[in-house]
């Protein structure tokens, strides 16, 4: 059986960042990803990231992706693409399928960085062709360079809905409306402002009622909601659209953690069932770590910080760096993570993470 020191499942922002850190410390890394290209969501994120200089703020996701890939290549990581991990056995064996063949890899440490998937939304007409996740539309326009429609409606106004709406405009589409069932827009005001000044109207307190169309979506009907989330009769609005994008949140892709028997916590603020972990992001099973959206839905900036953190923790545990070196590094990373988890948008996630880690408060300095 082939052996490696650190097997990382998922070559997105968390997995790549983790790989870079372990490689930097002289470790051997094998990265596995079921996709044919590494990078996860980074290469479709053509917008500039927020945060501070240390979080690569102001740099576009695609450029960060290229930088991480280059570092992984320079560090001579083994990257197995088109490789779907279907199981983890005996706490140290990663079983995967590549081109129809089964393989097994033995690893001293396993990092599960599988990310998240988009939540579906069922409503009359939602099975018509022309309905897709916002992330799917983003992949089509920014990776495949295909505009799947001309006239869009977006359901949900979190940052994903707002960013994808903006990128649809950049790709040449019209966005006729953004619906938000809650009374207030969920994502950042600066994203909303960009869309508004380009003429995209927001409908807060509105949801999708049904879609009409023969072969595909032809019309979307939205309806206003009262304080109890019930339709308000007579508030229907009709939109002539050919594509409907759904952005109503993400769920962590936790199957491998369940299979290993990791302990879980149910924390809605983080996207539902999430594996419990300690301050090194090690799960209840020794040697198995998690990083990125699987630990709770956040954004690529925190995923990258978590990846580095796990990279440091694995390196320390493997004896590649000393405990003192590791603790200095970890303290800095925790500070940066806490910065991303502060303010009105981040506070809830900070509090949720404390629960998930059984009381660990992150960085003391920021408390």
């Amino acid at each position: 059986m082939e052996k490696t020191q650190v097997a990382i499942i998922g070559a997105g922002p968390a997995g790549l960042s983790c790989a870079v850190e372990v490689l930097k410390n002289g470790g051997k890394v094998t990265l596995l990803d079921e996709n044919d290209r590494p990078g996860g969501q980074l290469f479709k994120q053509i917008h500039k990231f927020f945060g501070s200089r240390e979080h690569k703020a102001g740099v576009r996701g695609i450029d960060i992706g290229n930088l991480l890939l280059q570092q992984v290549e320079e560090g001579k990581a083994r990257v197995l693409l088109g490789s779907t991990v279907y199981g983890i056995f005996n706490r140290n064996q990663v079983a995967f399928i590549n081109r129809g063949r089964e393989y097994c890899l033995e690893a001293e440490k396993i990092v599960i960085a599988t990310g998240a998937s988009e939540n579906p939304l069922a409503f009359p007409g939602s099975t018509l062709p022309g309905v897709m996740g916002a992330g799917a539309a983003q992949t089509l326009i920014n990776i495949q360079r295909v505009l799947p429609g001309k006239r869009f409606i977006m359901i949900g106004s979190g940052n994903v809905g707002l960013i994808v709406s903006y990128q649809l405009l950049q790709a040449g589409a019209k966005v006729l409306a953004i619906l938000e069932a809650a009374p207030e827009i969920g994502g950042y005001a600066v994203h909303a402002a960009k869309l508004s000044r380009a003429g995209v109207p927001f409908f807060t307190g509105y949801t999708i009622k049904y879609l009409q169309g023969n072969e595909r979506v032809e019309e979307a009907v939205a309806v206003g909601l009262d304080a109890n989330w019930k339709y308000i009769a007579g508030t229907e609005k009709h939109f002539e659209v050919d594509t409907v994008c759904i952005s109503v949140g993400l769920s962590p892709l936790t199957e491998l953690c369940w299979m290993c028997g990791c302990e879980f916590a149910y924390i809605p603020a983080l996207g539902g069932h999430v594996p419990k972990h300690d301050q090194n992001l090690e799960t209840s099973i020794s040697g198995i770590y998690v990083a990125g959206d699987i630990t709770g839905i956040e954004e690529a900036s925190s995923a990258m910080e978590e990846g580095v953190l796990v990279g440091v923790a694995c390196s320390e545990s493997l004896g590649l760096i000393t405990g003192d070196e590791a603790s200095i590094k970890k303290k800095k990373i925790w500070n940066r993570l806490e910065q991303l988890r502060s303010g009105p948008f981040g506070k809830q996630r900070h509090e949720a993470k404390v629960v998930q880690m059984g009381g660990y408060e992150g960085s003391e300095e920021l408390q």
Partner: protein
Amino acid sequence: MSKDYNRSIVVKGYYQWTDLENSPGVPSMERMEQGPVAFVECTQEIPCDPCEEACPAGAIKIGENITALPVLDDEKCTGCGICIPSCPGLAIFLVEKNYTKTTSLIEIPHEYHPLPCTGDEVYCTDREGKPISSGKIIKVKTSFKNNLTPVLSVEVPQEYCLEIRGVMLKGG
């Protein structure tokens, strides 16, 4: 409290001037008379601070806590516009109110293709996206230093200098 600045934007998706005018990133009316000055239209405590580092005059302060709102020192602001493409949220503009006796010059980050050319007549939209006036493109700044965010300088009737924040191409 920052919340007060956000009453309109969180419901409608755009700022009403009455919410924005007292926010810490907006210059005073007196300062606007004196020459070009930045408008930092950023009123939610999100973790972000590249504008602070971008400003060569030290006129934008956020501080250690990166979720704090950017505060514009309009006396220090030289109106250079370097902050505009540094903002990941595309929320910074430049307003030169007295560009001529009757017109103002507004600099707007604009990430759409095709870009207008110098001299083009364009529609100018307010924060809500309503085309409220015509404008003339005076300059189109594109540079890799700007992280590929082009910045348009557009000449508009002076009475709209507090309202115009977007550009739409005619016939596009």
